[in-house]
Structures are given as structure tokens and as C-alpha cells.
């Protein structure tokens, strides 16, 4: 069972959910490049200039760990990354759990993604303004010059830390991408986990994903917001359990 965190966070966000599966599954947690404890030197502007570079990482990770029958749990942009990975290497995956997926964030004709291009530019600006203080104070620690141990400790204990420059590029790649055309190509058994009131991925978008993937069902959670695995871990675990059990049961 591979858990992939979404934009803006790191693998810590699975802390209430992933351990619940550890008795039956080999649980794999990882940080996308630029987040958490990832190796920033491995960042390559061209490779990570589109989501397919991130999907390649997932495929390579599964292959390197010699995983098979993978249950891939992806939040937000990582739901899309999982869809791309399953499109590339369908033999690796037994099912996809898509938490708050959105194949396209920007409205397009009749399609309602929930955001305009200007909104996304505004997001990039807010990423910038929040990293203004970071880049000078925390960057030296990241670069391995811990002459201020208290800063290093703070960093150690902080969650969702992200390299500012990579965060900016990842935001662009995430929120400007359009992966609607990939949905029909992925035949892997999939579950859309949709929150009731999600400003990032509205219910209509979850339904769109369900309707355009050949083998997908959707569970509408009572949870609100974009991170049910944090705000409603019980409900999230139950929904995943039910889906996995229904797969195990004879048809």
C-alpha cells in the first residue's frame, strides 16, 4: 500500500491513516521531491516540469521496492499522479484510492474545476509571500550548515515543509495541468473519496472523475475540507476498508 501526499504537505499527513493498514499491508510512505526529507539535489526542472515526472517517480519507486498488487492512495495532486502511474504501468497496481482528486483545477468551457487562471496566479503570489522569511532563515539549515541548532530542531519538528522554489514550480505544474484525457485510459479499480464541502475539489469534480474512469466508484464522506485523512481519519479508514474488502470478496 503506497501513500502519496498532495501539494503543500509531506508524508506526515498520513500519520492517522497509514498505521491502520500496517498489520495487513506493506505500507510505503514517501515524500515527493522538494517536500519533507526528499533530496533537493535530485530536482530536475525538465523532469518535474509536468506531472509525468512525478508519476515516473512512483513507478520507479514501486519497481525499486519490487512491489506488486499495489494499493495506491493518493491525495489531491497525487491522485492524478497515481492515475498517470497506473496508465504507464497498469500491471503494478491492483487499485487506486483517489482522495479529493481533480484532473483540472481551472474552469474550461462547460467544465467547472472551481478556479480561474487568475486564482492560480494569486496562489503563486501567496506561496511567494509566505516563503519570503523562510528562504533566508531556513535555507542555510537545509543546505547543511547548522550553525543554529535551534533552527534545525524547529525544522526537524515542522510538518509540511517544502523547498520554496520547488513549491512554486510544483504549484504551477499542479494547478495548471489538465489530465482529463487520461481518466478513460485507466482501467484499474478505483475509489474516489470525496468530501462534502471541498473548496479545492468540489463534489462535481469528484463525480466527473468517477464518471470518466471505466472502473471507478465514489464515496461521499461527511467530512468537510480537502484533507479527510486529517480531519476525519476514522471515516476515511472505514471507506478505504470497505472498498478493499469488496474487492477481496468474490464477485
Amino acid at each position, binding site marked *: 500500500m503506497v501513500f502519496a501526499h498532495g501539494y503543500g504537505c509531506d508524508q506526515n499527513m498520513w500519520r492517522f491513516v497509514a498505521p491502520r493498514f500496517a498489520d495487513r499491508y506493506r505500507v510505503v510512505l514517501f515524500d515527493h521531491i522538494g517536500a519533507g526529507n526528499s533530496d533537493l539535489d535530485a530536482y530536475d526542472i525538465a523532469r518535474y516540469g509536468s506531472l509525468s515526472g512525478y508519476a515516473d517517480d512512483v513507478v520507479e519507486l514501486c519497481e525499486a521496492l519490487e512491489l506488486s498488487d499495489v494499493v495506491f492512495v493518493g491525495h489531491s495532486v497525487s491522485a492524478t499522479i497515481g492515475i498517470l502511474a497506473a496508465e504507464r504501468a497498469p500491471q503494478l497496481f491492483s487499485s487506486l484510492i483517489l482522495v479529493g482528486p481533480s484532473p483540472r483545477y481551472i474552469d474550461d468551457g462547460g467544465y467547472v474545476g472551481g478556479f480561474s487562471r487568475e*486564482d492560480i*496566479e494569486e496562489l503563486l503570489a501567496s506561496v511567494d509571500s509566505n516563503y519570503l522569511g523562510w528562504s533566508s532563515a531556513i535555507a542555510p539549515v537545509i543546505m547543511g550548515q547548522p550553525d543554529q541548532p535551534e533552527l534545525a530542531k524547529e525544522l526537524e519538528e515542522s510538518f509540511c515543509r517544502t523547498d520554496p522554489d520547488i513549491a512554486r514550480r510544483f504549484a504551477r505544474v499542479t494547478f495548471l495541468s489538465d489530465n482529463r484525457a487520461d481518466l478513460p485510459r485507466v482501467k484499474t479499480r478505483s475509489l474516489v473519496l470525496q468530501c462534502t464541502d471541498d*473548496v*479545492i475539489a468540489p463534489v462535481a469534480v469528484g463525480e466527473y472523475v468517477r464518471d470518466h474512469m471505466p472502473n471507478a466508484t465514489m464515496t461521499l464522506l461527511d467530512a468537510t*475540507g480537502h*484533507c479527510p485523512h486529517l480531519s476525519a481519519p476514522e471515516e476515511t479508514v472505514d471507506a478505504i476498508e470497505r472498498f478493499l474488502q469488496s474487492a477481496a470478496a468474490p464477485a
Partner: protein
Amino acid sequence: MTTGDGDLVDGFIEALLDDDAETLYERAPCGYLSTTPDGSIIKVNGTFLSLTGYAREDLLGRKRFVDLLTAGGRIYHETHYAPMLRMQGVAREIAFELVTDNGDRLPVLVNAVLERDSSDNPVVIRTAVFDASQRRRYEQELLHEKLRAEDSEARATALARTLQQTLIPPLVPDVPGLEIGAEYRPAGDGSEVGGDFYDIFQAGDDDWVIVIGDVCGKGAEAAVVTALARYTLRAAAVQNPSPARALRLLNDALRRADVDRFCTAAVLRLRRVNAHWQVSSCAAGHPLPLLVSDGQVTEVGHSGSLVGVMDEVELEETTLSLDAGDALVVYTDGVTEARAPDDAFYGDGRLRDTLAVARGTAADIAEALRADVLAFQHDVARDDIAIVVARVPNAV
């Protein structure tokens, strides 16, 4: 202190002590919000209302904190801020823009804590909101200046590269009856304009000139002198058969120009006479040309003064004859002064040893020397390296 003043102070203290908790909350010098863990606003103070223009009833039970943000801020809130707050219990100095009642945007800084009950369930989020309009404007100016500085640095680097390309002859000309090989490698990562230059050009029928030089320093001013030196020598050498005369003209030009730079240079004039080449050579403060003949390496001529320092220069010309298989090598001090990581110099000895055993065409010799000098420095060139080799082909 008079009695009256004492009364006044007592009055202030009394007024402060009378400040009940409600007043402290309502009129605190920052906005306060209390929300449920999913963000629904359940309590708000007067300062927040006056900052944003909302009426209390607009907010309580009707809005979530995220609803008051701009669209971009909402994404940031949902993807980073809310998860971080949930896991960490606190968030500090987060920049948002609030959309006020009349649609304006108010830049704020936000601190928040998530309170949990005794069984660790989240109960309430308390948020303090500070007006950050001035600070945000200043930050944006800084950001703008930072981007501008990065942009102009990128341009300067690109300009330096372009300039460098124009100062190095792109291709070695095809000289009938003579092989020419040339190598150039700027110091470091190549982003700075180096001071080394060379030039190979025709002065007449079977009459060629090779120039090599090294301007002290680096950067834009050195580049100006490099360009001046190169074009002055080209013009002077075409009109003057004497290399020493060409170097004197360069000295005059540098003395006249308003530059505080000097340079070293060597000029070789090569004239074809039947099967061999007659060479006259002059070096001005520059490493002397090396003649490689039958595995023997010998210096050619005597070193004269630098150019660009004194009005009068002492220069001496030497002539020699190049026969089949002989090679003449000119180079800059980036070769001999190359340093290994243990600080050892490449030096004349190693240069001579390398040339003595080098085989093949002029291009092969130049390439072999460059490779050896770079390997010696573990591929990190501390100074520019320029090498030009002229060789008379073996008789057929």
C-alpha cells in the same frame, strides 16, 4: 512629583485594572477569531470587524475562515495551512489576504493555535489576525528588487558569454602548408570574461600572423582592453612586417587609452619559403614561444617588457626557420601556473616533458597539452588557458 500628578498616575492604573476581560478581547490591538476545527466562525472580536468591515451577524455561524480568503489563499489554506495546523497544533506568521466586506483585499499575518480536549480531540482554533498592509508592500518591493537583481545577473552572465565568444576566433583558419591547432578554456564556469586571447590571420600571400596575449584582470574592463589589444595588433601586424613594431604600436595605443590595465603578448610572423617557414617572433612580458623539433624543446628569443605600463618598451625580435615536423607552441600562463589540489605548479618542466612526447598534428599537440593541464588541476581551471600550435607537416 506633585500630589496632583500622583492622582493622575493612580487614575491610569485604576483604569487599566478596570479593563475587564471582555474589553481586552473586544478592543485588543489585533483581530481575534475562534472557529470550530473545520473553520466555522463562532466568535470574533470588535477589532476584526473594524479591520474587515463585516457585521458580527455576517460571520458567526455563516462563514468559515477560508471563505474570507482570496481564491489563491484558499488553495494555500487547504493544501498547506490547515493540514499543518492540524498536525502541528500551531501556525505562525502565515501571510494571507482577507477579502473585506466591500471587496477590498487586506494583507494580514496570522498566528493560530488548535486547542484539543483531554482525549486529544480538536475543539477550537484560535486565530490572531494582524494588519500587514505596510509590511506586505515592503516585502513586495523587496521581492520585486530580488527578481530584478536575478534578472540583471542573468543578463550580465549572458553578455559576458557573448563577449567572450566574440573575443575568441571561432575557427582556426586553413593555412596552406602549415598546421594550426588552438585550444581555449576559460577559468571557472566560463561565466566571467577572461583576459586571455589569441588570433590567427593572414597578412599576405603565404604570410601569416599568430598573436597570443593575456590582459591582467577579469571582467568588463579587462574585456575592453582585450578587444583593443586584439584589433590593434591585427591592424598593426598587417601594416608592419616587424612583430616588435606591432607590439610597440600596441603599447602606444594602451598608453593613450584611458585604461588602467596592462597585458603580455607574443606575436609570431610566419612566411612560407619553399618547404619551410621563416618565423620572426617577439614576446612582450609573455611566456616565450617553444620550438619542438625532434623531441627537443627550446625557448625562442628573449622576454621583453610588458605593454601598457611604460611609454618606452624594450623588445627584441628573434628569427628562426621551421622545417618539416617542427612545431612552435605559444601559450598563456594559465598553463604553467596551473595548480594541482596540493598547490604544486604545473611549471615549465612538466610543460616541456609533455611537449617532448606529444605526437601527431598541431591540433593533436594542442589538445594533448590542454588535457594534461586540466587533468593536473583535476578539471578545475583556476585561470584561463590559451594554447596555439603551428607545425610544418611532415615531408611526404
